[in-house]
């Protein structure tokens, strides 16, 4: 038990939560912005995978991590644009579009990897670049908090700043207002002159942007290579985190951290003399607990609303 406390209350562990949560947070932000606009983008996993590969390939070709990042982002935007083109212009069902993106990404990345490197498993034969880790001056000198917050990968800080930006966008900016109005009632929005398709397309592009950053993080820092299906469901967990966070920016951020922490805890517990079968259930138990909390909160909210609207109360 002592050993467990030592592991859980160490700065290493707290540091690893942020590290593990970063791709989940990016995906969750991508899910949040598209959901707010009323489109369910389930193609996040695929966009992440495509961006992860593009980052590796472009950085290996150009020798620059920054160009690689730009390539990854462009690839993510492109996939999101294609998805938007088919679903908004040609009215393909968004779920079908998302499924197509995911399937294309899983097979297509392997195909492109094979064309570029002659391998079908991993990009070990490409000399790709990684983005740097950043040490925060001043912050790193703070005891306890310093080693937790400083020294992360550049994109981890971008993820944290994205949360702030997302909050500001949705609450304060005209675009955020339009996105929310389109998501809540597209007909009403249209009646006051909002161009629904254009707003939804913008939201989808932003969603692609966040997912692509998550993908770039996976292959250009967290790891220094691409391997087939390397995102391993992080895009889906991001969608779950957004749902558990009840489609609010703060909620999404916190639930992403909880999912990250559950994963980090599951990893840490394996060191101890706890049966591995039990440890492996941690992320799923967390999901069930999260859903239970969500359900209870939702039911209470409904009851309160019902009471407010029922005539007997007045």
């Amino acid at each position, binding site marked *: 038990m002592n050993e467990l406390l030592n592991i859980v209350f160490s700065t*290493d562990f707290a540091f*690893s939560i942020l*590290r*593990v949560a970063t*791709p989940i947070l990016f995906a969750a932000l991508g899910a949040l912005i598209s959901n707010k606009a009323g489109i369910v983008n389930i193609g996040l996993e695929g966009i992440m995978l495509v961006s992860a590969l593009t980052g590796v390939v472009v950085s290996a070709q150009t020798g620059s991590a920054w160009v690689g990042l730009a390539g990854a982002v462009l690839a993510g935007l492109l996939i999101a644009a294609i998805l938007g083109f088919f679903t908004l212009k040609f009215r393909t069902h968004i779920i079908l579009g998302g499924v197509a993106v995911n399937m294309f990404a899983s097979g297509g990345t392997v*195909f492109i990897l*094979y064309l570029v490197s*002659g*391998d*079908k*498993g*991993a990009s*070990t*034969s*490409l*000399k790709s670049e990684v983005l740097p880790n950043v040490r925060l001056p001043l912050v790193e000198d703070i005891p306890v908090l310093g080693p937790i917050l400083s020294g992360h990968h550049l994109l981890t800080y971008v993820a944290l700043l994205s949360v702030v930006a997302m909050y500001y966008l949705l609450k304060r900016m005209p675009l955020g207002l339009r996105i929310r109005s389109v998501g809540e009632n597209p007909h009403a929005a249209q009646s006051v002159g909002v161009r629904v398709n254009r707003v939804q397309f913008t939201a989808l592009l932003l969603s692609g942007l966040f997912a692509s950053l998550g993908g770039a993080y*996976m292959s250009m820092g*967290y*790891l*220094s*290579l691409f*391997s*087939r*299906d*390397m995102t*391993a469901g*992080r895009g889906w967990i991001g969608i779950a985190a957004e749902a558990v966070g009840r489609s609010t920016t703060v909620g999404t951020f916190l639930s992403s951290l909880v999912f990250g922490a559950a*994963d*980090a805890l599951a*990893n*840490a517990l*394996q*060191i101890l*003399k706890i*049966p*591995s*079968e039990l440890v*492996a259930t941690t992320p799923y138990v967390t999901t069930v607990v999260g859903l239970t909390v969500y359900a209870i909160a939702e039911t209470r909210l409904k009851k309160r609303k019902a009471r407010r609207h029922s005539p007997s109360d007045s």
Partner: protein
Amino acid sequence: MKQKWVLVVLLLALTLTACSKAGSNGGEASSGSSPSAGNSASASNSGALKVVLLIPGTLGDKSFFDAANAGLTKVKQELGAETKVIEMGTDQTKWEPTFNDVAGQDWDVIISGGSQITELLNATAEQHPDKTFINYDTDIQETAANVHAYSYATNEVSFLTGAVAALTSTSGMPNANPDKLIGFVGGMDIPGINAFLVGYIEGAKYAVPDIKVAISYAGDFANPGKGKELSLLQYNSGADLIFNVAGGTGLGVFEAAKEKKRYAIGVDSDQAAMMTGTDADKASLIVTSAIKKIDEVILSAVTKVKDGSLEMGKLEVVGIKENGVGLAENSIYSNVVPEDIRAKVEEIKTKLTSGEIKVDNAMGMDTAQIDEIRNSVKP
């Protein structure tokens, strides 16, 4: 309207070209990685043995399938046989028709491998009793009368890696620490992986009796991120070397090794060799790999078919003695690992060959027995 039609035609054209490319890639042979094995041999040696290799998947995995392909190349070069490789892809529904087609053609020897393919291979063999079939990797005992199957003594080679790991941990090598702790990252808690683990633990204990082993399972063979996290934890808790048996997840182990400047051991193929060109720092930390010598096994099997000494209807377990498994003794191994350790490993290898050391096999064990072995070395 006109624009739309143009778009549709363009899309169709794109689909067709994509299909034809994929088709030629799958139907023909390994055009990219080794053209020599792909093309059928010239008509000049028409009396030669005709050998076909059916890959249940695609080449380029830097592991099983590429090793089998390398074996076939050796068969062609050293035995002058006429060879062909067919990549059947990952869609299992296409395997059976391919098997039937190939069995109906005039091939003498049909080679395939993997536990997934075993049932199909046996069924096809029963329908074509005049052909010789070789299953180069399976765990299933049942074989048809005209099939020779191989299984690899992964526990024996893991015994060697365990010895290397434990001796490294207690050595004065630059990236080793005083803690007598080594690590193991497995893909899943399944018998195939635990066969490696039990051999690893026994080998480590044989070399250094009071060694401790940190054991983690990723629960996934394609999640290098998870592999890295698990390895970082093991390295942080004092392990100086990790043996990965986790497929794609294992690539994360090497990432962690590079970040923490500790050692690692690869699996299935020489995993240092695939990154020496691009990341020499990382490769130099992968001291060796536990390899299945699928290429050698295929070569020896076809050689035996040729002189008629291959015993059919039998599952043969190939170990250190039969040269079916072994350590990757590359330049990193000879440069990074000190001579006294290598001499000790050589000595253990001799004892394994002579049968003086017997390694337990996790394949037949129940969970309680494996748990007991695991707990005996937990830190």
